[in-house]
């Protein structure tokens, strides 16, 4: 059977089971709303959900883009200046170990309650996994290929364009896929702490109002965006490095 049909059947089965269980147990909506109620909330609040989603998606996408761009630049610099790794990696580890939820209030103080603080939160969450993946790609470079380019007196730009970048492409896609979902989490956490717009704000404010179906609807939209983002990258990965996968499969 087609894989997509199987996935649809599984999702429908989960939603149906959820509906049945909530109906049988007669669970109050403010504790666990039935899928129908969540769907109702999606329709009823579609306008505010749409506006909020656009804001969160923008923040997540900008954070994702900047984090990956910076990671690629740093990894390329490390490939030319090896000692730089000893300086950058400890800083990256410090960033990684800082819980975003703890520093989000500081980000609001430093960058304001607008979009910037959420973008920075998304960058902080995405940066380390992106850097580690891209750096792995740079380090896995075949030294003889590097020497081949040296024999031909290639300049650094040629080295990056014709060797390093195509070589690290599989690792770059791994970085993009990992950080795609993390960027959404970063943006949401930023909005939880200090914001008056976005899906994170919508979730938090409706917790307090006990409008749990809308909370579920906002969470569902966040998840759908995270998953879609991941699969868009996966699609481009398949397009761009298909041949290499064929090589590896032999």
């Amino acid at each position: 059977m087609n894989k997509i049909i199987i996935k649809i059947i599984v999702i429908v089965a989960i939603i149906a089971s959820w509906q049945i269980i909530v109906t049988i147990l007669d669970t109050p909506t403010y504790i666990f709303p039935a899928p129908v109620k969540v769907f109702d909330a999606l329709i009823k609040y579609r306008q505010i959900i749409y506006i909020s989603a656009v804001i969160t998606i923008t923040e997540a996408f900008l954070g994702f883009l900047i984090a990956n761009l910076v990671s690629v630049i740093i990894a390329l610099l490390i490939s030319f200046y090896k000692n730089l790794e000893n300086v950058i990696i400890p800083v990256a580890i410090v960033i990684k170990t800082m819980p975003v939820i703890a520093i989000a209030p500081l980000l609001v103080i430093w960058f304001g309650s607008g979009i910037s603080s959420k973008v920075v939160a998304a960058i902080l969450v995405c940066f380390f996994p992106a850097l580690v993946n891209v750096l792995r790609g740079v380090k896995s470079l075949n030294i003889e290929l590097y020497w081949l380019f040296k024999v031909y007196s290639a300049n650094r730009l040629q080295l990056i364009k014709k060797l390093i970048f195509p070589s690290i492409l599989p690792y770059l896609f791994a970085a993009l896929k990992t950080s795609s979902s993390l960027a959404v989490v970063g943006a949401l956490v930023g909005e939880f702490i200090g914001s008056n717009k976005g899906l994170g704000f919508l979730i938090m404010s409706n917790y307090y109002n006990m409008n749990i179906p809308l909370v579920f609807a906002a969470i569902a939209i966040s998840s759908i965006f995270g998953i879609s983002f991941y699969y868009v990258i996966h699609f481009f990965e398949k397009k761009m490095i298909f041949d290499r996968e064929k090589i590896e499969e032999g």
Partner: protein
Amino acid sequence: MKIIDVQSVTKQYQKDFYALRDLSFSVEEGDFVSIVGPFGCGKSTLLEIMAGIRENYSGIIKIRGQSPEYARLNRKIGYVFQRKTLLPWRNVIQNIMLPQEIAGLKDEKKAYDLLEMTGLKNIVKKMPHELSEGMQQLISVVRSLMLDPDIFLLDEPFSSIDEINRAKMHVHLLKIHKQTNKTFILVTHSLSEAVFLSNKIIVLTSRPGKVKKIVDINLSNHGEDIVFSKEFLNYVKIVKAELVNNE
């Protein structure tokens, strides 16, 4: 005419670890020279120094009177590595054109002429993974010809190829040598490969490598059966005797 002059070259990695010590020899233009020696005697290191990609050595190396770095920067060196170095995301013709792209040239005709000469014209659009290892190395040899370098350095290019295909590669390589009349330096562990291809074999001592003996080879022909002839086997014996009495 002397094209390569190596005088008292020493390469030290750590305090008491010498890869090469006081190594001297010279190569005439158009020679096909093989360098043989025990495992770890610095053969590949010597080739890398000659290619200008490994620095920090003492002694003098001159390629047409200039340093290896100068020769490399002026793209006078062709190099074929032991491991496969075709870019897996480029097809055969794109791989062959790589040196020209880097040098800012675009002479596809030269690439096609070289492919014609080696009988590889029918595989230009193939990807490296679609080719045998021997073919990939032969493409690497063709690629190294693209900038018309003065010397070709080959670091055990056929070491991982089966004997039958290796023999075919030898014929191709000799053909390239004959038609280009360039200088080839081959590092190899195979004595029969060295005897078949070279007009001169440099036997190195065990580490730290220095020249033990230079054996001139003058085979009467390069036919298919020459490897079974007494003449060929005698040369192999001479080189082997030098290697066995290496300690």
